[in-house]
């Protein structure tokens, strides 16, 4: 059950972020002023992928809550870091982001730190 929850959480988080990034790259530069916030809210309602990403976010949030209820937080936090690697790989493959040696090395350092935090 624990690993099933981890899997749901990791996949839902990755899917949510990939969908958001995909839509926002196409949307052009957005701001968070009074008008910008209104436009972002309207975009969430109007763009199917953004709406889907919010649903994925809810899934990920509730599976995290269920996870920390039964498993220790020191397991849940590093486990959630798995989405970090999955998302970076998928950002390269699906979103065609350029991940050079410096970004890859930095991401691995951050991952190491997050795993260490939870131990």
């Amino acid at each position, binding site marked *: 059950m624990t690993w099933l929850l981890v899997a749901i959480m990791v996949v839902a988080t990755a899917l949510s972020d990939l969908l*958001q990034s995909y839509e*926002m790259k196409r949307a052009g530069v957005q701001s968070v002023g009074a008008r910008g916030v209104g436009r972002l809210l309207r975009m969430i309602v109007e763009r199917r992928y*953004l709406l889907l990403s919010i649903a994925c976010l809810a899934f990920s949030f509730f599976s995290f809550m269920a996870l920390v209820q039964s498993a220790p937080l020191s397991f849940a936090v590093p486990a959630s870091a798995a989405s970090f690697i999955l998302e970076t790989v998928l950002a390269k493959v699906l979103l065609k982001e350029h991940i050079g040696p410096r970004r890859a090395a*930095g991401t691995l350092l*951050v991952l190491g*730190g*997050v795993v260490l*935090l939870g131990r």
Partner: protein
Amino acid sequence: MPASTRIVRTYSLLLLFLALRAIGNLCLAWGTKRLPETLAADPLVYLRSMLDPAVALGVAMLIMALLTRLALLSVADLSFILPMTAVGYVLAALLGRFVLHEAVSGQRWLAVALIFAGTALVSSTPHSTTGKDGAP
């Protein structure tokens, strides 16, 4: 949009996101701890908890954090934002140590140092590699 404007926008959105999420979580934690009822599977209990001003403020700030992150994704790569937002862990450790006077273990400082070094390395890469004005 000129590259320098884009960099300023990326970092101001990043700071705003980190601040909103940190303060939002703080409000939520503080608000839920003083609720008379325990949060359970009953959705009504969650709805009632929103009547508490601290909980409501926390939720509002977390919604704003989500929107700020969307705006951030419109100017920067996902693979750039993911490691950069991990700076939040560093801020939490520093706030815990110097504001709340919590004990932070040596292992935790090592973790903080790794995250800090990693984000510094990532921040030296181009923010956006897919947009029209991003570097290839």
